[in-house]
C-alpha cells in the first residue's frame, strides 16, 4: 500500500492555502470547496470552520484513526485575484497529477511572491477608472480631469497610509478626504458644467465591491455568519468614505 503523506503536514498546508484564499478575497464557499478538493486528493477528510479573521481545520483519515486539528489567524492583506486564480488552478493540478506536499508548498510560495502590478500602473489605471465613472454619470472633459487628479491623489494617500499601518478604515477615510478635498475645489469655484459629478465620483475607487459581493454570495450559500461579518465590514468602509465626503463638505461649505 502506498505510504500516505503525513497528516500533520497535509493539515497545516491546507490551513495555509485556506488562509491565503481568505486574505485575498475568496468567498467562504470557494475556500471550503478548494480545501476539500485538495484534502480528498490526499485521501483525507477535512472539515473547516471559516470565520473572517481565523480558520480552523480538522483533518482525519478515512478509518478515523488519525486526527489533526489546528487554528490559524488570517490577516487581511487586500484583494489579490491572481492568487485566488492560481490556487484554483493548482487545486485541479493536485487532483490530476498527484502532487506531493512539498511540491504544493513550493508552488504556493511562488504564487505568493508573484509581483503585483507596478504602483504607477495601478495609480494611473484606477484614476482612469474614476474618470470613466465620471463620464458615465454625465460629466464632461473638465470633470473627468478633476476626477482623474482627485482619484490619483486619494489612492496615493490611501496606499501610503496602508504602508504606515494605520487602521484600514482610517486609510479609507484619508483617501476619501483627500480625493473629495481636491474635487471639492471644483465645486467651490464652479469649474466645469457639473462639478457635482466630479465630487460624487472621485471617491468611487474606494467602494467596497469585493466585501459586499462576497457578503451576498456567502449569505446565499448559507454561510450566514460570514455573510453578515463581510457585510458589516463593507458598510464600515462605506461609512468611512461618507465621513471623508462629509468632512470636505463641512470644510468647503458646499
Amino acid at each position, binding site marked *: 500500500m502506498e505510504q500516505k503523506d503525513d497528516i500533520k503536514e497535509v493539515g497545516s498546508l491546507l490551513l495555509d492555502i485556506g488562509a491565503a484564499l481568505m486574505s485575498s478575497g475568496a468567498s467562504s464557499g470557494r475556500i471550503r470547496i478548494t480545501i476539500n478538493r485538495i484534502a480528498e486528493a490526499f485521501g483525507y477528510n477535512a472539515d473547516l470552520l471559516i470565520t473572517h479573521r481565523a480558520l480552523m481545520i480538522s483533518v482525519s483519515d478515512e478509518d478515523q484513526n488519525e486526527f489533526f486539528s489546528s487554528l490559524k489567524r488570517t490577516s487581511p492583506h487586500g484583494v489579490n485575484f491572481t492568487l485566488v486564480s492560481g490556487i484554483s488552478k493548482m487545486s485541479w493540478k493536485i487532483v490530476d497529477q498527484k502532487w506531493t506536499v512539498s511540491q504544493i508548498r513550493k508552488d504556493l510560495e511562488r504564487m505568493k511572491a508573484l509581483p503585483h502590478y507596478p504602483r504607477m500602473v495601478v495609480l494611473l489605471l484606477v484614476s482612469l477608472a474614476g474618470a470613466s465613472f465620471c463620464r458615465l454619470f454625465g460629466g464632461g472633459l473638465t470633470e473627468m480631469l478633476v476626477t482623474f487628479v482627485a482619484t490619483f491623489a486619494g489612492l496615493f494617500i490611501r496606499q501610503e497610509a496602508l504602508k504606515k499601518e494605520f487602521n484600514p478604515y482610517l486609510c479609507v477615510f484619508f483617501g476619501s478626504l483627500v480625493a473629495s478635498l481636491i474635487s471639492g475645489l471644483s465645486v467651490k469655484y464652479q469649474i466645469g458644467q457639473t462639478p457635482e459629478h466630479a465630487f460624487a*465620483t472621485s471617491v468611487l475607487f474606494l467602494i467596497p465591491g469585493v466585501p459586499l459581493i462576497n457578503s451576498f454570495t456567502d449569505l446565499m450559500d448559507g454561510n450566514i455568519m460570514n455573510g453578515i461579518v463581510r457585510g458589516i465590514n463593507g458598510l464600515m468602509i462605506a461609512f468611512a468614505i461618507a465621513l471623508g465626503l462629509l468632512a470636505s463638505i463641512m470644510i468647503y461649505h458646499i
Partner: protein
Amino acid sequence: MEILALLEKGIWFGLAALGFGILFNVPRRTLWVIWVLGAIGGLTKVFLLEGGIGVVLASFAGASFIGVLSIQAAHGKHAPPLVFSIPAVIPMVPGAFAYRMMLGFMNLTGDITSENYNELLHQTVNNGLKTLFILMSLAVGVSIPMLATRKESAKVIKLKK
C-alpha cells in the same frame, strides 16, 4: 447618433472595470476579457434603461449577463469566474444614488422646515432603497449561473456539456 452615444458609454464601463481589475490584481491574461465583460454588462443595463425598464431590473439583467459570460471566460482563460465577474459589475455600483442618499441624510440632520422635510425624506429613502436593491441585484445576478446549474465549480459545468 443616439446609439453612438450609448456605445461610447461601453468604452467607459470597460475602462472602469479594467481599473478595478488592476486594483484587485487580476492575472494579466484576463484584463482584456474584463474590459469586454464590463462593457457588455454596462451596455445591457444602459440599453434596458433606454427601453424604459427600471434601474434595479436593468442592473440585475446586466449583472446576470456578466455572470453567464464569466463562466465562459473562466473556461477560456483558466481562472475562477469571480476574477472576471467582480471587476466587471463594479461600474454598475450605484455610486450616485449612494451619494445622494448620504447627502439627504446629512440634510435631514440639519435645521429643516417641516415643508421641506417630507420632500427630502422621500428622496433620501428612495435613493437609499435604490442603492440597496441595486447592490443586491448585482450580487445575485453574478451568482445566477452557479445557482441555476447547481454546481459547485465552473469546471464541472464544462464537463457536463
